[in-house]
């Protein structure tokens, strides 16, 4: 590819680089504006001459957000839900992916197609039956009502994506482990699991995001007990359509976005290779 690049004429490359940088700035701008508005003092946000900088950053909006009822609790709830979904779906998907890639058995292809079809099921359409299901099991207003559905919805994609990673581990390794007298369980957890771990991390980005971002389930299943609420709901407390508290909304948004950003930056490399692997596989 280097040769190709050398052949691209200089002015063209410079133009390409300039536009790449410009687009990067445009794409990042909403995030910049979010953080900026979170730090702006109230008077500057509600100004019809918005400036792209602030000379007197203030923490007022953040104070308001954390002073809001039980914001820390919502944050913790969100973390709990996302964490539980990530861990559980990683483990369950790992086992299932191993089963469908390392074994030949009846209905294997059927199952794979079903996992694929399951990915297409619109989560939102199932809100109604899930609502009744949660009610019947007394799970309404509990975090379980958020964890369980998200677990179910993140599994098919996770299994589908992990297949590539499990496949990539050479069969010879299993033979060797067997010859050395390792039991199947031992091979599974002590050899296969660590090798597939990078893939698990890439996969968990998707489970994390879907659980962390969840808005619909929180809105529908956590109806009366606000102590079980999660961040997206807390954020909307500040957003009243007629008179939104923009500073508060932006501060809460910043707080809500940061964990995902951190998570993304940490797994970025694996994500790119993981996507490549899952797609080419």
């Amino acid at each position, binding site marked *: 590819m280097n040769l*190709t690049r050398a052949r691209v004429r200089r002015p063209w490359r410079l133009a390409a680089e300039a536009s790449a940088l410009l687009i990067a700035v445009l794409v990042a701008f909403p995030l910049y*504006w979010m953080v900026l508005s979170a730090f702006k003092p109230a008077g500057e946000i509600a100004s019809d001459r918005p400036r792209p900088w602030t000379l007197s950053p203030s923490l007022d909006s953040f104070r308001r957000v954390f002073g809001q009822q039980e914001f820390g609790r919502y944050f913790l709830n969100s973390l709990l839900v996302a964490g539980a979904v990530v861990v559980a779906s990683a483990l369950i998907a790992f086992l299932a992916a191993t089963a469908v890639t390392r074994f030949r058995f009846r209905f294997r292809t059927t199952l794979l197609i079903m996992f694929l079809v399951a990915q297409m099921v619109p989560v939102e359409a199932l809100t109604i039956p899930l609502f009744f299901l949660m009610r019947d099991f007394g799970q309404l207003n509990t975090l379980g009502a958020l964890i369980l559905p998200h677990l179910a919805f993140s599994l098919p994609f996770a299994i589908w994506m992990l297949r590539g990673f499990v496949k990539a581990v050479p069969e010879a390794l299993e033979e060797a482990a067997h010859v050395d007298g390792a039991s199947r369980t031992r091979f599974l957890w002590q050899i296969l699991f660590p090798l597939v771990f990078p893939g698990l991390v890439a996969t968990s980005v998707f489970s994390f995001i879907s659980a962390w971002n969840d808005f619909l389930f929180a809105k529908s299943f956590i109806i009366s007990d606000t102590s079980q609420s999660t961040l997206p709901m807390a954020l909307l407390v500040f957003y009243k359509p007629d008179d939104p508290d923009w500073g508060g909304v932006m501060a809460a948004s910043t707080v809500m976005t940061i964990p995902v950003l951190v998570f993304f930056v940490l797994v970025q490399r694996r994500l790119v290779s993981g996507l490549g692997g899952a797609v080419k596989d």
Partner: protein
Amino acid sequence: MTAPATPVAADRPPVRAARGGAVHGTPRRRGGRATPWIYLAPALVVLGGLLVYPVYQLGLISFLEYTQAQVSGGEPTTFQGLGNYATLFRDEEFWRVLLATLLFAAACVLGTLAVGCALAVLLTRVRALPRLALMLAGLGAWATPAVTGSTVWLLLFDADFGPVNRVLGLGDHSWTYGRYSAFLFVLLEVVWCSFPFVMVTVYAGIRAVPAEVLEAAALDGASPWRVWRSVLAPMLRPILVVVTIQSVIWDFKVFTQIYVMTGGGGIAGQNLVLNVYAYQKAFASSQYSLGAAIGVVMLLILLAVTLVYLRLLRRQGEEL
């Protein structure tokens, strides 16, 4: 399907295939038939209970009379047959929402793919620093939760305090007032947060194309557009299929953005899409069975998309 001689055997080490053939359908010496099912059990239990069963229930509810009275147990549920669907299909609003959903999703998919692919190609033509900048910006947009993305865009395009109207000199034009401008507004946000997935994936795919192929094309004096159309696009076909289908699925189900940005479906429901429509019917007006019927319609449309996808996969000779 019991025979191990699937096409899969081809890319496996010979040892494996030979042994598989020797043991008649159970490729493993130890453990036996039950092992894969034991590994699959947790996944199947979760999916069965929280996906398959709710789908079944969704179908069931759509055939019943199910409103607040039945939910609270005040009245028995009655079987309606196709009554709910008849009500739905007679409702002009439903067709309007369905059409809006299809067009909106199509526009989102096209926008996302165009921007994602163009930027993926751009990424391959720049040096490390601009590439990193664009990649990080993209990851940032991708990572932004739908709710926060929606509120930030609302602020950016706010009629009074937003910078966009100032820069474009639109005065106090309200983006959410008109039907089309509201859809366009949401579309921009959706494209913003979903193009990075396409960009990153397609970029990873382009990087996997052998350099010689591109060099040969460049030596032959092919224009960038020609290189894309005649060399990259065919080689990237499997990846393009995946990102297209994935985008269709995501964009067809947009909920949060519409709900937050247009305040639950826009003025007089002008910006409703099926998802939000079903939600409003079920939870705002307690017509659970109508909401369920809308859900079934969505499910069927996405099922059709899936079937197309499976056919495409099969035509590529891809193994499952």
